[in-house]
C-alpha cells in the first residue's frame, strides 16, 4: 500500500525515473492486471453473445456507458491519493444535473454556459468539502458523509417530486449524449480528455506529485513544508468539478432528471478507484487505474445480465471484486515490503 508510493521527498519526478525501476514495473503491473481482467471479461461475454461487442449498439455502449463513472473515478482517485475520500460526489452529480436541467428549462442559456455553470457549481460544492477537511481537520470520511446528506437534502428540497424530462432538454445536448465521432461516442471522448489531462497533471506536475506525498505521509508532508491545505483544497475542488461535469454527462446520456439521480454512485466511484489499484490509504495508484476500474465495473454491470446471472447476484459479484482488489493490494504490498526489507539486509 503506502510502501508502493514514491517517497514524500521533492517528488517532482515520475516514479519511473526513480532508482526502484522494479517498483515502477510493479505499479505498472497493477494496472496491467486490471486491464487483463477487463479484457478477459469482455472476451468471455462476447464469446457467449457476440452482440455484446460486435454490434453497433454493443460497441457504442462499451465506451459510452462507463464515461460518467470514469469522470467520477478520476476525481475520486485524486482525492483518495491524498489519503482522503469524497463520498459526496453522487449528491453533487445529482444537484448539478438538476441545476443544469432547471437552467435549460427556466433560462434558455446556451448549452456551453450551462455546462460551465454546472462544473463551477460542482467545484464550489467540492471546495466546501475541501475547506471543511483542510481547516476543520475532521476526517474526510465524516465530512463528506455529512455533505452527502446535506447536498442530497438540498436537492430533495429543491426538486421535490418534480422531474425534468427529455423534451425539456435541448436536442443539441441530448444528441451529444449518444452520437459518435469517428466511431467513438462523444461522451467517451470527453472522459478520455479528462483522463488524459488528469493523468498528465498527476504524473508530471509539482501539484500532482505533492498529492501523492501528502497521501503517503501527511505529517512528513506538512513538516517538509508542502502546501498541504492548498493541495487538498485543489483535490476536492477537482473532484467536485468533475462530479459537476459528470452531472452534465448524465443529463446528456439519460435525458431524465429526478431526485434520485446519482444516488449511491459515490460508492461505485470509490469501488472503481480501489479496484483500479488506488490504495484506500492514499499515496499510491493512478487515475488511469481508476478509469480502468470504472470500465471493469460498468462492463460487469452490463455483462452479467447477458451472461444470465440473476439480478440478485450482480451486486454480490461487484462486492467480491472489490474485496479481491483489496486483498490483492494487501498481498502485493506485503510482498513488496518483504522485498524491500531483504534488499536492506543485503546492503
Amino acid at each position, binding site marked *: 500500500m503506502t510502501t508502493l508510493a514514491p517517497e514524500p521527498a521533492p517528488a517532482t519526478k515520475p516514479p519511473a525515473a526513480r532508482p526502484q525501476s522494479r517498483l515502477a514495473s510493479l505499479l505498472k503491473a497493477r494496472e496491467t492486471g486490471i486491464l487483463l481482467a477487463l479484457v478477459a471479461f469482455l472476451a468471455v461475454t462476447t464469446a457467449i453473445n457476440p452482440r455484446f461487442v460486435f454490434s453497433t449498439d454493443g460497441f457504442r455502449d462499451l465506451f459510452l456507458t462507463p464515461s460518467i463513472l470514469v469522470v467520477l473515478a478520476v476525481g475520486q482517485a485524486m482525492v483518495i491519493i491524498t489519503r482522503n475520500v469524497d463520498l459526496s460526489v453522487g449528491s453533487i452529480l445529482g444537484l448539478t444535473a438538476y441545476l443544469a436541467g432547471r437552467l435549460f428549462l427556466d433560462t434558455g442559456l446556451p448549452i456551453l454556459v450551462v455546462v460551465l455553470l454546472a462544473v463551477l457549481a460542482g467545484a464550489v460544492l467540492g471546495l466546501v468539502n475541501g475547506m471543511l477537511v483542510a481547516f476543520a481537520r475532521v476526517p474526510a470520511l465524516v465530512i463528506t458523509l455529512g455533505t452527502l446528506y446535506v447536498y442530497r437534502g438540498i436537492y430533495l428540497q429543491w426538486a421535490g417530486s418534480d422531474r425534468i424530462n*427529455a423534451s425539456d432538454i435541448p436536442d443539441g445536448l441530448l444528441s451529444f449524449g449518444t452520437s459518435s465521432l469517428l466511431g467513438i461516442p462523444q461522451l467517451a471522448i470527453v472522459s478520455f480528455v479528462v483522463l488524459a489531462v488528469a493523468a498528465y497533471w498527476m504524473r508530471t506536475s509539482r501539484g500532482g506529485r505533492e498529492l501523492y506525498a501528502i497521501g503517503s505521509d501527511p505529517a512528513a508532508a506538512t513538516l517538509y513544508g508542502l502546501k498541504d491545505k492548498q493541495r487538498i483544497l485543489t483535490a476536492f475542488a477537482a473532484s467536485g468539478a468533475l462530479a459537476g461535469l459528470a452531472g452534465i454527462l448524465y443529463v446528456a446520456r*439519460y435525458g431524465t432528471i429526478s431526485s*434520485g439521480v446519482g*444516488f449511491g454512485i459515490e460508492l461505485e466511484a470509490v469501488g472503481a478507484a480501489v479496484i483500479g489499484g488506488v490504495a484506500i490509504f492514499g499515496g499510491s495508484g493512478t487515475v488511469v487505474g481508476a478509469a480502468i476500474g470504472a470500465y471493469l465495473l460498468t462492463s460487469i454491470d452490463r455483462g452479467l*445480465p447477458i451472461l444470465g446471472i440473476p439480478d440478485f447476484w450482480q451486486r454480490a459479484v461487484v462486492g467480491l471484486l472489490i474485496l479481491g482488489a483489496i486483498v490483492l493490494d494487501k498481498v502485493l504490498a506485503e510482498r513488496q515490503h518483504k522485498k524491500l526489507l531483504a534488499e536492506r539486509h543485503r546492503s
Partner: protein
Amino acid sequence: MSHTTKRGLTVLATLTAFSLTLSACGSDGGSDGGSGSGGGGEDLSITFIPKNLGNPYFDASQVGGEAAAGEFGGEFEQVGPTEATPDSQVSFINTATQQQTGALVVSANDPEAIGSALQQARDIDIPVVTMDSDTNPEYRDVFVAQADAEGIAQAQVDLIAEQIGDEGQVAILSAAANATNQNEWIDLMEADLEENHPDIELVDVVYGDDDDQKSFDETAALLQSNPDLAGIISPTTVGIAAAARYLSTSDAKGEVALTGLGTPNQMREYIEDGTVESFALWNPEELGYLSAYTAQALANGDITGEEGDTFTAGDLGEYEVGADGVVVLGDPTVFDESNIDDFDF
C-alpha cells in the same frame, strides 16, 4: 489522531441530532373542535387537498375536480402544502374543517398522520374522500383508486399485442425485484398472455430498480441477448423512460416495440420521434372528476360508502362502491400521438 476522531464524532453526532430534529418537528394533531353541520345540499363546496401544490399530476386532477363541480353547481377550492411531507396536510384539513366545507377530497401523504384531523372533519359530518393515495380505511368514507391491478395489467398486454401484431417474443422491464404492485401486475400479465395471446412468448423479466442507469443496462442486455425480441413492457415510469431513451438512439428503434406505464411529459419526446407508439396511465384529470362526484354523492346522501352503493359521475357514467369503500376509476387511459399534447403531467 484521537483528537481528530473525537471531533469527527462530534460532527457526526451534530449531524444526526440535526436530522432527528428535522424529522421530529411538527406532528401536532390540532385540537380545535368546531361544530355545526357540514355543507351539503345545492351549494356544495368541495375542498381538494393534494399531496403538494405545484405538482403537474395534481394540477391535472384539479382541472377534473373543477369541471365536475362546475357541472353539479358546487364550489371548488384546492389548497395544500408545498411539500409532500406526512403531516404537512394537517393544518389545511383543520382549516377546511373549521370553515365547514361541504366535502373533503384528500390525497394522503401518510396513511396514519392525517387520521385524527380527518376524523374531526367526519365528526361534524363532512364527508371525506381519499383519492390516488389512501389513508387507513377507518379515517375516510370512500377511496377513489386510480385503477385496479387487472385493468392495469390487461391494458399493457393489449397495447403490446396490438403493436407487435399479437405474435413474437416480449420481455418485461420492471422496477425492483421485490416491488409488490409490480410483481402483482407481472403475474397478471403472464396469466393474460398465456390465456389470450398464445403466440406471444414472454422470454424474460428483468429489474431496473427504478434507476435510470440500471434500466438502461437491462434494456441493452435484453436487446443483445434476445435478437428476436419484438417488444418490451415496462410497467414503471422510470423504466419506460429509460428504455425509451435507450431505444431511441439504438439500432432497435422501430424494430422493438415499447409500452408500459408512463407520464405524457416524460414520454412526449419518444412519442414524437416515433420510438414509442402508445403507452398507458390512469388519467389524473378523470381521477379528480370522479373524486368530486364521489364527494357530492356522499354529501347528498346518495351513497354512504357501503359496499354496493351506486352513483352517477357525470360523463364517466355509473360507479359502484366496492369492498372497503373503494371506488375504482377504471381502465387506464392510453396515450399516443393523437392525444398526448392534451396532457401536461
